[in-house]
């Protein structure tokens, strides 16, 4: 077993997912089989191999940075139009700071 139910609960907590017991029962063996499978990467010796985080190709330095200029894309009303709860000019969230 690469992944126990306890591991899965811990990872779900990290990812802000509240999984039901039924979901865990299905996911744990599925995730375990994937994690067991990916362990095959350990067959490869990668000593001295640079990790690849992004696709790269020859280009001039900073060639892809645009000028740092403000541009208007959409206003706050448009930015708020998809919010589940909103007030005038802001997103509404549940109370964050606990009362004494």
């Amino acid at each position: 077993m690469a992944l126990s139910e306890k591991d899965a609960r811990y990872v779900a907590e990290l990812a802000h997912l509240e999984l039901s017991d039924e979901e865990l029962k299905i996911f744990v063996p599925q995730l375990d089989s994937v994690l067991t499978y990916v362990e095959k990467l350990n067959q490869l010796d990668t000593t001295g191999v640079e990790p690849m985080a992004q696709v790269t190709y020859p280009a001039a330095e900073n060639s892809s940075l645009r000028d740092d200029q403000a541009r208007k894309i959409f206003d706050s009303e448009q930015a708020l139009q998809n919010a589940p709860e909103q007030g005038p000019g802001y997103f509404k969230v549940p109370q964050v700071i606990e009362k004494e």
Partner: protein
Amino acid sequence: MRAGLRFFDTLCRRSSAGKNRFIIVDLTNLTIDEVSGLLGERKASAVEIAQAHLGRIKEKDPEIRSYLTVASEKALAQARAVDEKIAAGQGLAPLAGVPVAIKDVILTRGLRTTCAAKMLEEFVAPYDATSVQRLDAAGAVFLGKTNCDEFAMGSSTENSGFFPTRNPREPERVPGGSSGGSAAAVAAHLAVASLGSDTGGSIRQPASFCGVTGMMGTYGRVSRYGLVAFASSLDHIGPFGRSVRDLAHVLQVIAGPDPLDSTTARVPVPDYLSTIEDGAGSYKVGIPEECFKGLEPRVGDNIQKGMKALEKLGCKLVPIRMPHTEYAVACYYIICTAEASSNLARYDGVRYGFRSAGYDGLRDMYKKTREGGFGPEVKRRILLGTYALSSGYYEAYYRKAQKVRTLIARDYLDAFKEVDVVLTPTSPFPAFKIGEMVDDPLAMYLADIYTVTASLAGLPGISVPCGRTGQKYGSPSLPVGMQLIGRHFEEASLLQLARAFEKAGGFELS
């Protein structure tokens, strides 16, 4: 096309017997060149072409279910604008009046963009993706938004949060995925061309399942601005079409640097159409031995025939080795899930999308929102990615996968010293039955073996129809796709080779 021409749209298929004395043009069976020709000669209007497609969608899509949103009003408004420009004597824009469909992970201003996710069921994009804005500026007509796997995670479109799409060639089967709706819409003549997105094969594989062509450019060739992020170092936008020329037309419009996506390359975009008819010439085509080991003959037979056809066209087939191929799926699924777990952290019920009811405090709101808003495959991938990035596992999984990614990219660099193009099947098997693989995520992941390597290396890839499975393998006879992978920024070579193959092949399906 002659004078006295009359147009029928839905009627014309039945009247092909020739009884009708008019020349019948099926307005839903057009290439982009033909759309331009009809509009240029004023033998059809953009509105007529749009209406023909909208009519066919109404008739056929209740069965196929390729669209999540049909944008009739928008389409007709765009078509009218095209017709007005023509009436005013203005020149035709490159995609004037071409009806296209757009995968629902690509933002379209004022139109619902759901990512086929309950999480974004009501989301209306406040801006256009760069590729969408460029299509619009080029005169394209947006028929609507197409179904896909939720947040583009899947290989069958069965993970859509709304409903599965059926393969137009065989309705009991999946269209592939994740861009299954975009592939099916083009295959069923519910659009002339479409946009999909490809992270590990999500354009190429459904193109092969549905018997159409599909292409992913080099990473950085097409802007990702406005593509809802799944795995940012692997995501691409690319076209589907019923012909290779149509792919070239669409790619021409959407390719090129974009100040809004710093990963787009400042590499000039060549004129793809100017070289596309130049033939297969003396291309050296690499055949990786690893990709044919254990390949099902019902796919292998066709790929062998395809290889022979290329040889006949003047290509030289060169056996090559790609020794890290067998590690590609493992590498890909660590990297893409890690990136996904980070990208999908934004769905927190605050700025957009679904927010669960009945929570107790902020943290509980996040958890209940994500629990209720995401489907099972998205949750699995978030869990996998979070695990691979978590303390104690980062080095063993994520870092290791990044190093293996380097080895896979090197396999290609080595191959391209000897050959111009690498050829593989697009998928190890043709379209499977709806429901057949849903309970086995690992088996579904393994099917991405031929497409993920090019994604990891950032290379351009194209899938072209390569006939149908032979009768001896039973019915139904299903489309098979052949994949060609090229050097960075050599999309023109892929298009040229694919076009020569398509022209010579006898492999055309549409």
